[in-house]
């Protein structure tokens, strides 16, 4: 019996070949419509010439099994009751209060925090707090060294024992192409630039903080993306929150995906434009919003909108799904909207040349009006960039908040980006970049396939290096993180509020630095822990594929 759990609207979707006979339709397959569960059937992957998708698009979000949903709610209910009990005990001083309190002199001020706001933090998050903020003391490469911490008062405070847990397999850092290294050409080049330029800049881009290195970087980024010009900023989060307000203002409309990152939401809010949210990756919902917006105009005054901006991400890091870019671009062209693509996780990680989701779908980068991304994930540095037409970049150079008020990028960081980008492009004369991109793609496919075969529920697209494994129950969040660390594997677990309340998950980030041995070790341990914690919820057991290379005419059968 499979019943849709009330708070999840995800369903099993297998993209079929879009209608090949339709120049009139924009290629949306009626079977892809909304939330009705599609019965799984045989899927044939055949390349489409002339269709919107040049390659198969396989995305699956299996439904939460009913029993698991009920047990999860029961779990949260029990925790909430105990939370109220503990709060009561603490209020009447029966139990010791561990957390910091207000100063004596300020006791009659209005309280800084509402007790209710922090209920979740005090009573649920504190119990499993040791799974986050784990300090490391080495390069965040394929293996890392974690500093051991102990808590004698149930996670209210931590003490460092002084030991380090060495050689922990790192499945949590965003190190997609393996550039987080402390040896090699990137590090040497960065060291040289550090010696020459120093570390800080102490001024903004528009005043006297624009170094020749920044100009070099921007030219390189523009040629990497295939756009006319680009501009680089010191922080990826700030790139979104400071540039969206520069592009849109009151009287414009922003159509934002449901699961967009906090930086996109903050940027949209700060701009003052009207925000409407469409269902995650759902093109019917987006089309309906576009139609309604143009036909009805602004609310109440009915004036036409000044501009419409669609905000999407390349890879959504909590779901592992890839945006349906061909359809979004077709919609954008039909309705004359502008597209802002945030490739924080997909730049370097997708596509045969590592140029991101545009490369992955084989589309033209000029179709995307604003291509934004960060250097933190695939380039092993920090910062963000925006690429697009020259007019756009000229405008941002004069009107971006970051160019006027924020310090520019630090020179060694800039050099790291330049070296790693040249490596990916193959400009440094080696094939290292290409190999890394291919290794990542292979790792992704292998890891996802093995996990699905074991029987876990894995969300997301088959090609996305972000692999969410569903845990659901609150107790299993803590148990999974701790058991994996005992077995020397560092994983990231996420719960509410980053995800819906019953859909907590463990998220693996694959890397080109992971060798097959590392992946096999990790898979073995995940298998063990999965059996121990009873995490293998999947009803759709995949028939194991024969080990042959994946080509476009492979048939894949799924059985119930």
């Amino acid at each position, binding site marked *: 019996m499979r019943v849709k759990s009330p708070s999840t609207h995800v369903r099993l979707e297998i993209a079929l070949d879009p209608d090949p006979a339709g120049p009139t339709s924009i290629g949306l397959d009626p079977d892809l419509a909304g939330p009705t569960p599609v019965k799984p059937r045989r899927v044939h992957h055949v390349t489409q010439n002339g269709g919107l998708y040049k390659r198969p698009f396989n995305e699956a979000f299996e439904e939460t099994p009913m029993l698991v949903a009920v047990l999860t709610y029961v779990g949260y209910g029990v925790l909430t009751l105990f939370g109220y009990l503990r709060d009561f005990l603490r209020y009447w001083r029966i139990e010791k209060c561990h957390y910091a309190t207000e100063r004596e002199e300020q006791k009659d001020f209005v309280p800084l925090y509402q007790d209710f706001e922090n209920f979740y933090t005090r009573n649920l998050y504190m119990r499993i707090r040791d799974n986050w*903020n784990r300090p490391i003391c080495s390069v965040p490469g394929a293996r890392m060294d974690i500093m051991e911490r102990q808590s004698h008062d149930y996670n209210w405070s931590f003490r460092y024992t002084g030991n380090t847990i060495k050689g922990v397999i790192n499945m949590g850092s965003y190190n997609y192409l393996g550039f987080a290294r402390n040896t090699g050409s990137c590090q040497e080049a960065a060291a040289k630039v550090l010696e020459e330029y120093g*570390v800080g800049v102490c001024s903004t881009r528009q005043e006297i903080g624009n170094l*020749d290195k920044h100009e070099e970087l921007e030219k390189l980024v523009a040629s990497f993306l295939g756009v006319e010009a680009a501009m680089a900023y*010191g*922080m990826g989060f700030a790139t979104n929150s400071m540039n969206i307000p520069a592009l849109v203002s009151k009287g414009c409309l922003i159509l934002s995906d449901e699961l967009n990152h906090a*930086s996109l939401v903050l940027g949209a809010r700060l701009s003052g434009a009207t925000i409407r949210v469409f269902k995650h990756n759902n093109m019917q919902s987006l089309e309906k919003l576009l139609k309604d917006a143009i036909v009805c105009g602004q609310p109440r005054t009915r004036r036409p909108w000044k501009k419409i901006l669609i905000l999407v991400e390349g890879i959504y890091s909590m779901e592992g799904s890839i945006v349906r870019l061909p359809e979004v671009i077709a919609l954008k062209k039909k309705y004359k909207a502008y597209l802002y693509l945030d490739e924080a996780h997909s730049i370097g990680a997708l596509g045969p040349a590592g140029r991101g989701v545009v490369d992955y779908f084989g589309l033209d980068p000029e179709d995307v009006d604003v291509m934004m991304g960060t250097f933190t994930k695939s380039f092993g540095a920090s910062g963000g960039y925006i690429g697009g037409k020259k007019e*756009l970049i000229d405008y941002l150079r004069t009107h971006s908040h970051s160019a006027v008020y924020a310090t520019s990028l630090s020179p060694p960081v800039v050099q790291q980006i330049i070296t790693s980008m040249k490596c990916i492009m193959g400009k440094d004369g080696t094939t290292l970049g290409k190999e890394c991109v291919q290794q990542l793609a292979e790792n992704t496919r292998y890891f996802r396939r093995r996990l699905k075969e074991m029987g876990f529920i894995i969300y997301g697209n088959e090609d996305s290096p972000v692999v969410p494994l569903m845990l659901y129950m609150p107790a299993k969040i803590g148990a999974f993180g701790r058991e994996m660390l005992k077995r020397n594997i560092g994983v990231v677990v996420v719960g509410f509020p980053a995800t819906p309340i019953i859909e907590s998950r463990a998220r693996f980030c694959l890397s080109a630095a992971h060798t097959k041995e590392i992946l096999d070790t990790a898979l073995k341990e995940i298998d063990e822990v999965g059996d121990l914690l009873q995490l293998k919820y999947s009803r759709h057991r995949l028939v194991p594929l024969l080990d042959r290379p994946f080509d476009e005419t492979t048939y894949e059968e799924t059985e119930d």
Partner: protein
Amino acid sequence: APAYHLILEGILILWIIRLLFSKTYKLQERSDLTVKEKEELIEEWQPEPLVPPISKDHPALNYNIVSGPPSHSIVVNGKECINFASFNFLGLLDNPRVKAAALASLKKYGVGTCGPRGFYGTFDVHLDLEDRLAKFMKTEEAIIYSYGFATIASAIPAYSKRGDIVFVDRAACFAIQKGLQASRSNIKLFEHNDMADLERLLKEQEIEDQKNPRKARVTRRFIVVEGLYMNTGTICPLPELVQLKYKYKARIFLEESLSFGVLGEHGRGVTEHFGINIDDIDLISANMENALASIGGFCCGRSFVIDHQRLSGQGYCFSASLPPLLAAAAIEALNIMEENPGIFAVLKEKCKRIHKALQGISGLKVVGEALSPAFHLQLEASTGSREQDAKLLQEIVRQCMDRSIALTQARYLEREEKCLPPPSIRVVVTVEQTEEELEKAAATIKEVAQAVLV
């Protein structure tokens, strides 16, 4: 039953039947449009271009290109000049010890941290730096951000929500304005450094509170000020502020980007300068991009206040952590600050000297206190249009650069600032500038101003 009773009931039943079968009143007449009309509307609609075109001679379009490190002697657009424009107050930008510490960290950790603080992005260097900053400022805890602008812009919305009241100075910098905008609280501006105006606003608020005591019990009040104002170069009157704080029960958030590492006997900022107990200030926020010559920012204060940001500071939770080499550079810079506290007195001396030397230039006035290492030169008499003023100042800057003094105009976003300061030239004093260089700069500016403005 009386007849009129039956008749009334009959009429009522007929009315109900009529209402049930009448057409519902549609508010949206537009939904009666036919499909063809909708398609026509879609065809006809033309959006504005994504960005308006920028003319080639927009004053902010072409940046000055600095080749090489932006240190004391700087090469701008190919010309070698003495740097009077970077906020490198303590000259730590090309200090060999700082560079060596950063290099060691680079060799150990690589460049990036590849993750936010919550997901294996916390390095022992970050914990070290937070510890050292807390000890240096004599507070319980400190928290680090990876971007100076994001520090105060994430700290304010973490505490102040919709419905809370924030009293902020008119000359507050842009980062504070963005933080306030993100918080959606009620903003009340008071005149720059005018405690009487602030008291008036606080009194008005008190009267409001008495009308609605239930609401007043849950409305938080904050006063946001800067230690040393970036836009005017003046110091905030902190002792009076602390008095007002206890009188009207508002919390103080102090932004010390310019005063950290500058004011006070040991460089601890404006609290040390006035001798105020640091626990009286609820939150001190500063960026490490000025005196510490690194990148990033920090907030420090009591654990009760700071710990909250670890889960609700947006720039902390949702962003990658500070690269370890920058954190190591900041630690080394702190070491240097602690080892020679004499540099703060030297810096103060130099500030006083140049402040005096620049008095009495015809056409330009010095805006800022004698203690402030970053002050402004504004036109004494404006021409009437901001553009004209800016052009004149740009000409002065250009001629100074020709004579090897690197200066810059203070840049603002004209349409976004709440209270736009008048155009000015920013002059920055650092410990590395010698007395001759200071004299030379003053003389050059005098000469050029004479030539351009008279």
